[in-house]
């Protein structure tokens, strides 16, 4: 138990420091990299909680795929230009603070009320070994939670098609311009 606690404290320190560094860093590239570090540490938390599947997905999807696209965009835009915060929208900062506080409140409420669970979760070795394994997760997704699963995949499909449609429209608009250039 103490060994787990020591590892947790070390990881938690790294996670918090990475999150702070992400916020305070001048350079958008560094911010993105600190966020990746944060994601990586969170995935180690999942590993410690006996959820290897979610840990690996966290690395693949967030630290891998999504952040690569972020970096891609930041590099193409030029990271140096982003050093001065844009103040075009006057109500942006107050709104951000307000929404941040709301999120904090929700998190605090969840911790204080412990969701809907009144007693601590029943922990047995059997449940821990099966919990979060890809086999159990897949079974649950395709039986109990089939409907939400299908709806989510449908939403993702819609987003993908939307992205493709957007690029197509751009091309169609560009085409008539060509004769005027020549």
């Amino acid at each position, binding site marked *: 138990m103490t*060994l787990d606690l020591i590892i947790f404290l070390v990881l938690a320190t790294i996670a918090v420091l990475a999150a702070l560094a992400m916020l305070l860093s001048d350079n958008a*590239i560094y911010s993105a*990299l600190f966020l*990746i570090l944060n994601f990586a540490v969170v995935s180690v938390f999942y590993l410690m909680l006996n959820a*290897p*599947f979610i*840990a*690996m*997905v966290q*690395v*693949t999807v967030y*630290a*891998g*795929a999504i952040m*690569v*696209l972020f*970096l*891609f965009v930041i*590099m*193409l835009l030029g990271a140096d230009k982003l050093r001065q915060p844009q103040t075009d929208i006057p109500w942006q900062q107050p709104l951000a603070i307000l929404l941040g506080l709301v999120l904090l409140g929700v998190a605090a409420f969840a911790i204080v009320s412990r969701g809907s669970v009144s007693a601590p979760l029943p922990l047995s070795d059997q449940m821990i070994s099966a919990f979060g*394994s*890809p*086999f159990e997760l897949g079974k649950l997704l395709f039986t109990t939670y089939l409907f939400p699963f299908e709806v989510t995949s449908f939403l993702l499909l819609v987003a993908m098609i939307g992205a493709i449609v957007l690029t197509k429209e751009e091309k169609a608009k560009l085409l008539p311009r060509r004769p005027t250039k020549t």
Partner: protein
Amino acid sequence: MELKTLIEVSIAAAIKSGILIGVLLTSFAYMTLAERKVVAWMQVRIGPNRVGPFGFFQPVADGIKLFLKEELIPAEADRVLFILAPIITVIPALVILAVVPFGPAVDICLPATLSIPFEWGACYKVPLAVSDVNVGILFITSIASIAVYGIVLAGWSSNNKYALLGGMRSSAQMVSYEISMGLAMVGPVLVAGSMSLQRITLSQEKLWNVVTQPIGAIVFLLAILAEVNRAPFDMPEAEQELTAGYHTEYSGMKFALFFMAEYIKMVAVSAIATALFFGGYLGPFLNDVPSWLAGILGVIYFSAKTIFFLFCMLWIRATLPRLRYDQLMRFGWKVMLPLALASIAITAVFMAIAG
């Protein structure tokens, strides 16, 4: 977990990791020589033959040369990321093989003199893999997705337009082909009913996956070529267009690290292809011989298959010209992705029929 077992597990893992890294570094050194020799042979040249018999000590000479080179850092480069990028490139390459089994489990009995913290003269059943986790396939995809960062950061931090273009190309290419690679890996998972590479290997006892899923195997083999940026997909370092791509500004040992990562990745993906589609360490006589001999035989079968794929990579490099970038992207999205999906669908239907 009990402290004693924890110590035992950590020591076993440390020894195995040490052996694995040693083997990978040695194979990197000799892959560079093999590449030069094989390509020279295919182009009717002689290749390196000055240092030692048949150029056998050429890697040592190359290493010493690179150590003695001056290390330049461009004035406008981002120094921290410039130094960090080669390291970020090498580590995923070294880590990715941790879940691949190289042979069947062997019984190892410790000599009675070796005591702490192991039992005197105790026997252990040691699986010949650093770790056998039930999410092995996901581990491979997650490490592969991390591997992109080194190249992207190298390209950006160099503050050189060719390097940046190389980095951009590689990130787009690797992200695109990762999808086909990941989908091609679903087939073996379906057959084995598990994401552990040990289980996937054992599921091929009767028939290798390449026989039952030829499309998946071909898609996987092509996708790994693109993942390790080898010819004909070596866009990120297309000399004619980008000087040297993402490592244009690198010199000395930092350049050597990129070089090392490329060759180690070649070994790693060949080993993964072996485990997923070509029966891994399985081969004749494995069940008829004592455990220690089966272990040795398994490692020999595994290495032989891996070396065959490495040779194919060199062969392809000596044979095929580089694709154009738009051809590469079109091929990845319009040919590889549908083929990979079709392979999954066919495999799934057959698995459903077979029950």
